[in-house]
């Protein structure tokens, strides 16, 4: 809401201190986004007449111009060409500073002295046009030497661009902002009074009828009639104020309507009475499929349920006496009854509508108007009478013949009753942490139009009708408390550092995630953040046959699906870093991926629907870690090693490379160089290791073409679950103080026998003395039969009680060999 200071001053004698006003508005919650100083920088600019134009030798972009700005000929160099001898143009003389801060100095170009600058509208902050000089020739009152502010009727002013919060419908107008500001600054607020207007003896009902069929939708309707109107331009000051407030002047009738809205917050709609059947207005709910052509010449279909939750398609419409729709209530009028130059009788509608209905209709029709925005927040049903009289008064300024008919129709005619909220002062103090007494609170409330009476510390607060945001009952106590705090100033309220006996602590998820991140950072990989919003087709790209989770109303089609995997985004980032010639590129991300409910993943249902009374099945969310390593020597083996680091770093008991080949974690990985990770004891799949499918690399990361990219993906939801992935025992195991002995054994093992199986067998053979066992060599080739390979394992044996002797070692060795032999392995 743009609020000119000159307009605010109609209501209270505000001071000139712009910084103070701004700070006060901010502190009231009427946040000033911007302050425009109108006329600033134009003080020295004058009107000049073009008396001579001549070329400058050797210059084809500029010309020499001689002007007269009241005190004789002045030589100027000018680049514009849109003027002729005798034209009047703005001159910024030497020493002037223009609105942008540009200072004019004497300059010499190609031997010609330029004693100032002739200006475009853009340079003066008076419009966007910078194609040529601002021509003033046709402006009445423009004469050489006159100040441009005078010639153009620009008055110095300050415009505050105020953001009005959703719960402050009362402040969405000049008088409302002024009321708040005056209350805080201790200035007397002078509300708009119904002025003396010229009235006709003709009764309004004799010229028009009015009827409200649906009182829920239209809580109050006012209809006034103005006869003998001459449609003309509004007075200059009205036009100027509308422009400062950001509206375009149109004619005195429409301008008066807009002026009233800006001043009092009440949108009104003027109709040409001659074009309204009946003549009269009926307000009712739209019938299904009913149509209207609105002022913007678009045909709108009404009464049709929308997509929005609970939008049953209820629209409120204004009809004429024959029941044809001539306006969408509170949003936009119809084209048929528009005010025109020939209009002589004006029917004015000023009403209060249900905010939710206006919000829904406006959203469904994508028709957002100044009026709709105000009705959506809730208007003051008590200001309707004043708004109609004020409208008449403003029209009469430029159409003195116009007469307001007697007794405008108002349904219901009784003024709305102020609601009351009971506010015990201790509730206020309990919410604010203050020590206010009831009288202080009552005084603070009175500054913004609330009337509070105190009985033993319990305030009975009458809510002004311009505050529909204040709720009844208990919630109203909180609302009134906010008003007390706001008018007092939040900065005046106490501060206290609370404490409680319960200790603070991170959650298990954060602790676990931090541990995972710590291990991965230790591999040299850096953490990326890729968007969860992806383009269609990414699931197919990964080779998965699943339904995508689709965003109904995306910003762009490239961001219209939820990601199913972290891989594509991460791979693109890897590719871009390689293209930028980064070395040792390794990136990881920890984040959520989403699975459509139809994909058979873990189901997630949650409360949904009106009042949360239903259950909705929503996409599953899984937290994943994905790591890509694109070092020169990285490959699937690197991924296996990193996975082991993770197992070790997180204190997991035993997670191994598994044999399954159909897990969705393998999507997008190299089909013959990837495998799942499983917990050895529970067989739960926790992730996948390998390389990225070269086809995907070509597609998504051309910068990484022909490079092996190691990939580790972990399902953190599984990894975190100690029933799925076993942890090392909590209890410490004492280490032996006796020397250990290593036994290296190489077995020619048939391919059908897995490494794990061999290790298990050998471990079992070693029994309690085994401290550690690991694979240290794999050999295929001459000397080993095809269909077999040699697997070399190193077993470290130790006893807690003694140094192992040769005989004991030999018997353990024998037991291990026998165990391996039982699997079909042969000692080499």
């Amino acid at each position, binding site marked *: 809401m743009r609020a000119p200071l000159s307009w605010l001053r109609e209501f209270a004698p505000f001071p000139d201190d712009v910084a103070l006003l701004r700070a006060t508005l901010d502190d009231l919650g009427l946040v000033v986004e911007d302050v425009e100083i109108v006329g600033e920088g134009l003080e020295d600019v004058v009107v000049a007449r073009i008396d001579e134009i001549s070329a400058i030798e050797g210059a084809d972009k500029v010309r020499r111009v001689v002007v007269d700005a009241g005190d004789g000929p002045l030589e100027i160099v000018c680049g514009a060409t849109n003027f002729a001898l005798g034209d009047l143009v703005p001159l910024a003389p030497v020493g002037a500073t223009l609105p942008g801060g540009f200072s004019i100095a004497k300059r010499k170009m190609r031997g010609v002295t330029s004693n100032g600058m002739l200006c475009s509208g853009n340079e003066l902050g008076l419009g966007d046009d910078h194609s040529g000089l601002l021509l003033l020739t046709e402006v009445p009152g423009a004469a050489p030497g006159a100040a441009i502010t005078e010639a153009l009727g620009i008055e110095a002013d300050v415009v505050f661009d105020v953001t009005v919060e*959703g719960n*402050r419908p009362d402040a969405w107008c000049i008088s409302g902002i002024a009321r708040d500001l005056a209350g805080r600054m201790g200035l007397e607020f002078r509300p708009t009074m119904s002025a003396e207007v010229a009235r006709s003896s003709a009764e309004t009902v004799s010229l028009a009828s009015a009827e409200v069929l649906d009182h829920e939708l239209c809580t109050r309707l006012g209809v006034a009639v103005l006869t003998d109107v001459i449609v003309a331009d509004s007075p200059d000051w009205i036009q100027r104020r509308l422009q400062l407030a950001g509206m375009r002047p149109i004619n005195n009738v429409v301008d008066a309507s807009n002026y009233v809205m800006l001043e009092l917050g009440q949108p009104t709609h003027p109709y040409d009475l001659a074009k309204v059947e009946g003549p009269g207005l009926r307000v009712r709910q739209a019938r299904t499929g009913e149509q209207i052509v609105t002022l913007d010449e678009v045909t709108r279909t009404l009464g049709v349920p929308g997509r929005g939750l609970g939008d049953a398609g209820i629209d409120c419409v204004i009809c004429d006496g024959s029941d044809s729709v001539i306006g969408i209530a509170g949003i936009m009028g119809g084209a048929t009854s528009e005010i025109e130059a020939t209009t002589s009788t004006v029917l004015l509608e000023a009403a209060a509508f249900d*905010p939710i209905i206006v919000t829904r209709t406006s959203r469904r029709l994508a028709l957002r108007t100044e009026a709709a925005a105000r009705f959506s927040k809730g208007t003051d049903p008590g200001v309707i009478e004043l708004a109609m009289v004020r409208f008449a008064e403003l029209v009469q300024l430029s159409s003195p013949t116009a007469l307001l008919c007697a007794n405008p129709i108002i349904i219901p005619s009784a003024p709305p009753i102020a609601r009351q909220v009971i506010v015990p002062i201790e509730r206020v103090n309990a919410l*604010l942490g203050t020590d206010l007494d009831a009288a202080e609170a009552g005084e603070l409330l009175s500054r913004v139009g609330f009337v509070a009476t105190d009985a033993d510390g319990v305030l009975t607060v009458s809510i002004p009708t311009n505050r529909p945001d204040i709720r009844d009952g208990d919630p109203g106590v909180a609302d009134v408390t906010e008003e007390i705090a706001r008018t007092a100033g939040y900065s005046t309220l106490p501060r206290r550092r609370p404490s*409680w006996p319960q200790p603070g602590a991170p959650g298990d998820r954060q602790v676990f995630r931090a541990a995972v991140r710590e291990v991965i950072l230790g591999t040299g990989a850096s953490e990326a953040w890729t*968007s969860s919003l992806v383009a269609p087709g990414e699931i197919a790209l990964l080779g998965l046959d699943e339904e995508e989770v689709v965003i109904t109303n995306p910003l762009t089609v490239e961001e219209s699906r939820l990601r199913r995997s972290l891989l594509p985004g991460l791979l693109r980032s890897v590719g871009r870093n390689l293209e930028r010639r980064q070395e040792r590129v390794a990136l990881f991300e920890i984040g959520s991926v989403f699975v459509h409910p139809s994909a058979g993943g873990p189901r997630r249902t949650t409360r949904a629907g009106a009042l949360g009374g239903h259950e909705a099945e929503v996409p599953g969310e899984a937290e994943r870690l994905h790591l890509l390593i694109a*070092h020169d020597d990285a490959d699937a083996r690197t991924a296996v090693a990193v996975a082991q680091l993770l197992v070790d770093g997180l204190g997991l008991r035993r997670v191994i490379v598994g044999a399954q080949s159909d897990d969705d974690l393998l999507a997008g990985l*190299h089909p*013959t160089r990837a495998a799942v990770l499983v917990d050895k004891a529970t067989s739960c799949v926790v992730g996948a290791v390998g390389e990225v499918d070269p086809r995907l690399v070509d597609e998504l990361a051309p910068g990484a073409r022909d490079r092996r990219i190691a990939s580790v993906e972990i399902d953190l939801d599984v990894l975190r679950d100690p029933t799925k992935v076993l942890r090392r025992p909590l209890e410490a195991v004492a280490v032996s103080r006796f020397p250990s002995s290593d036994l290296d054994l190489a077995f020619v093992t048939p391919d059908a026998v897995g490494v794990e199986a061999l290790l298990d067998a050998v471990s079992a053979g070693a029994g309690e003395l085994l401290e550690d066992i690991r694979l240290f060599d794999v050999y295929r080739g001459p000397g080993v039969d095809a269909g077999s390979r040699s697997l070399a394992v190193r077993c470290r044996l130790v006893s807690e009680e003694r140094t192992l002797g040769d005989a004991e070692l030999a018997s353990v060795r024998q037991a291990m060999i026998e165990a391996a032999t039982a699997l079909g392995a042969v000692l080499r």
Partner: protein
Amino acid sequence: MSDQLTPESIAALLEQAVAALTAAESLADLDHQASAIRAKDSALMAARRSLGTLDDIDARKAAGALLNDAMTTVTEVVEARRAVLEVSERATQLEADRLDLTEVVVGDVSLPLGRGHAHLVTQTRASLEAVFVAMGFTVEEGPEVETDWYNFEALNLPPGHPARDMYDTMYLDIAQPETVLLRTHTSPMQIHLLERAVADGTLPVHAAMAGRCYRLDTPDARHLPVFHQIEGLVIDRGITFADLAGVIETFTAAYFGPDIHSRLRPAYFPFTEPSAEFEITCTICRGEGCRTCSRTGWIELGGCGMVDPAVFAAVGIDPAEWSGFAFGFGIDRCAQMRHQIADMRSLIENDLRFMRQF
């Protein structure tokens, strides 16, 4: 030459070409055969060049059409063969590439020395969480896909509420329209926590919740459609607005430094009343007034307020016994302010040159 241009001879030329293509056993061979067929000196091209030798216009037209068809057929055969060979070559390559990961000798793999950099947003989030933990908060988190109930209705934003327009919501094409959505703020976690606390009888609650949120915001220097928020919720006996102001001030000093202060000014959030916007001393000019803070010395950080009675009603908490406050702000924005990052989009570009600074 014109004997080459009879329908029969053209068919024969085509047949030869197709046979050569079909016989190609590798993509390289296929490319070689295809370019031979399309080369100037190929039989088909020679035939095309000799069209001019036909005097009869109709015959010339007919032969020309046949030759064009033949070239089209060649293209089709090349593509069909390419598809077949691609599959088999990929299969061959993959097979040749096969590596049994169960046989990896982990001890032989050399991992590089070096330490990576956590994402700036992660670092910021961790610092913020640490500050709140030190102040006695537990840390909680929740889902990014939410329903209308948690994101709006239980937070006193019933369907049709005008303030919903403040949250440019992305809806999912699941269940009833506009029922399932991407959370627009972390505040749905308030409802989850309170529902749980009521069900388990575990009030009071002192929790901080961080996570990813979504809004239909065109990306620019200060906004991303996918962003991160952190939220605080305290529900206990005797909690007041003074406690809220105190917590905000303590947090501000703890995170930004002792010379950065906070102030509250009235604002509107349907789920808090009284509500406030909190501002902190401008981190650029330290309160002197500069362009970033519009010469006010203060910059907006987040929203806060006393939990609204309607929220208590939605989760079944008696406001006569319990009161509390909530606050929330952008993690990315915190990082942006603390590190003076000109353009928020730097955070999602994942350029290592940028990331390695932090």
